[in-house]
């Protein structure tokens, strides 16, 4: 009954365009209105001189002046730097941690379902609650963590300042974000691990390979497409930490956690430099795009399909 022609889809081709139009139509419409339009408007705003509170003045074109200003602004450059550092810490932290957890959870452990559920929990909390809870838990003066450390014998002067220290606040924030998002990466890694055929491990076992070898010769290469996907997505997501920073430190102390998305927000909402803010945002977009492209190119080196 199955008469299959060599080019299976050709008999559908002529009809597909109109079908596709109807299927994609609504999404495309909404996409243009709510994703593309703001982007274009943002680019447009960055090219005019709309930098004061008052009427929306978009008549004076200054082209790249706002962009030039960004490069001369030490505070802006510092913010980009902080975001970059934050991303580095966060992505490294979460990829390693979630892979490690996924490897463990892949085994037949006792209480596995319970442990798994507990590990996933932070993902569901809302950012304000997280802010409140961590501020209390990491209170350097009478919070539980430092109380515990003191109990264990850490002297008072060496107790970490967590969110209140100029040097410790950014890493602490990265850590909290790792805690929050661990669930998603772990799940994805777990799914990928389950696709690795057991026979490969068994063969390796017979050949006398230790867990080290198994990890680096079998597991990692076989899940590298997933790893790649996660790294790309996580890097992009690491720049989306506005809510977390706002809820926990609001850029402080000083400007220690003033990452670029917070800086962009402030330039617009506190100082009314709307065009400047949009220029910074476009630069950020280009930066993320560049990073993604670089990663895409590099994948030939380490990703096995």
């Amino acid at each position: 009954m199955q008469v299959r022609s060599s080019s299976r889809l050709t008999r559908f081709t002529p009809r597909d365009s109109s079908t596709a139009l109807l299927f994609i139509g609504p999404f495309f419409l909404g996409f243009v209105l709510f994703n593309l339009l703001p982007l274009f408007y943002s680019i447009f705003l960055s090219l005019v001189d709309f930098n004061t509170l008052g009427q929306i003045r978009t008549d004076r074109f200054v082209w790249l002046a706002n962009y030039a200003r960004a490069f001369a602004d030490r505070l802006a450059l510092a913010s980009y730097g902080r975001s970059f550092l934050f991303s580095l810490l966060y992505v490294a932290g979460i990829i390693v941690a979630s892979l490690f957890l996924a490897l463990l959870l892949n085994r037949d452990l006792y209480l596995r379902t319970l442990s798994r559920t507990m590990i996933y929990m932070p993902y569901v909390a809302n950012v304000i609650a997280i802010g409140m809870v961590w501020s209390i838990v990491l209170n350097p003066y009478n919070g539980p963590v430092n109380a515990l450390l003191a109990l264990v014998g850490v002297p008072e002067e060496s107790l970490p300042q967590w969110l209140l220290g100029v040097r410790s606040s950014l890493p602490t924030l990265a850590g909290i974000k790792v805690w929050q998002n661990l669930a998603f990466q772990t799940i994805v890694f777990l799914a990928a691990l389950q696709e690795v055929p057991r026979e490969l491990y068994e063969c390796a076992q017979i050949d006398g390979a230790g867990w080290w070898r198994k990890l680096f010769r079998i597991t990692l290469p076989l899940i590298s497409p997933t790893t790649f996907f996660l790294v790309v997505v996580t890097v992009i997501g690491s720049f989306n930490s506005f809510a977390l920073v706002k809820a926990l430190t609001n850029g402080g102390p000083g400007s220690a956690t003033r990452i670029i998305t917070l800086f962009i927000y402030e330039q617009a909402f506190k100082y009314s430099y709307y065009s400047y803010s949009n220029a910074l945002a476009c630069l950020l977009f280009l930066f993320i795009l560049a990073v993604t492209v670089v990663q895409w190119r590099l994948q030939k080196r380490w990703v096995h399909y």
Partner: protein
Amino acid sequence: MGALLSSQKARGVALQAALSLFVFAVGLLMITPFLFMLSASFKLPGLVFVEPLRLIPRVVFLGNFQRVFSDRLYPLWYWNSIRIVLLTIPLRGFVVSLAAYAFARLRFRGKNLLFLLFMATMMITPEATLVPRYLLYKAFGLIDNQWAIIVPAVFDVFFLFMLRQFFMTIPQELSEAAFIDGYGHLRIYWRIILPLSAPALVTMILFTFIWIWNDYANPFVFINSMKKQLITTGLQFFQSREGANYALQMAGATFAVIPTVILFTLTQKYFVQGIATSGIKG
């Protein structure tokens, strides 16, 4: 020979137990902040900081929850959040799955280019476009309106990507058999593809719920009236009003977290499977 094997077995069991314990400990560590949150919500307001390591309060104080439930506005905000989520999920479900179907199973010109364009927009951080979006929504008349949250959320590229990957893994033979039987694309979509995609769809529903339930930035900017606030912005309000009363805030936050915890636990088995077969990995 028997003795060798059984000692190996014993070591295997020991290793298993050790690792299980470790993972369990990690799990405990992950939920510890929640435990503190829960514990604080049952403490008398003045005692939240007094004994920071004490999880079970000396006196279990129910007054915080009483105040939360009797608050005039809290239930309203809760309902607003629920309503927005209930509206977003089906809308997003249909619009995105239809588009994903097209990208996965139809052939038309410019398909890949269009998809790439969609993907590129994932790299725009939402805060960066806050000002343009505000002005745009103002022009559409969406400010101070639940639709300002719902409508943009419907056209989400992340799930378009995920569903497309998933749909691509469903064998073409099924579609072909259906065509032979006279099915059109719409029926194939509705009768065949969707039912087979249950794990991916559940994943989408779950994460949509979580992300919208916990969204703070969008309601903060786009909602004005106090009656229309959502639970996230409402909680923030609790904080400013009560100032130093952490116990009350924690009670409010605990209660706000409950639906997501329940939903997450119930749908656990689906989403590991969902992502596994969605072909995202490769």
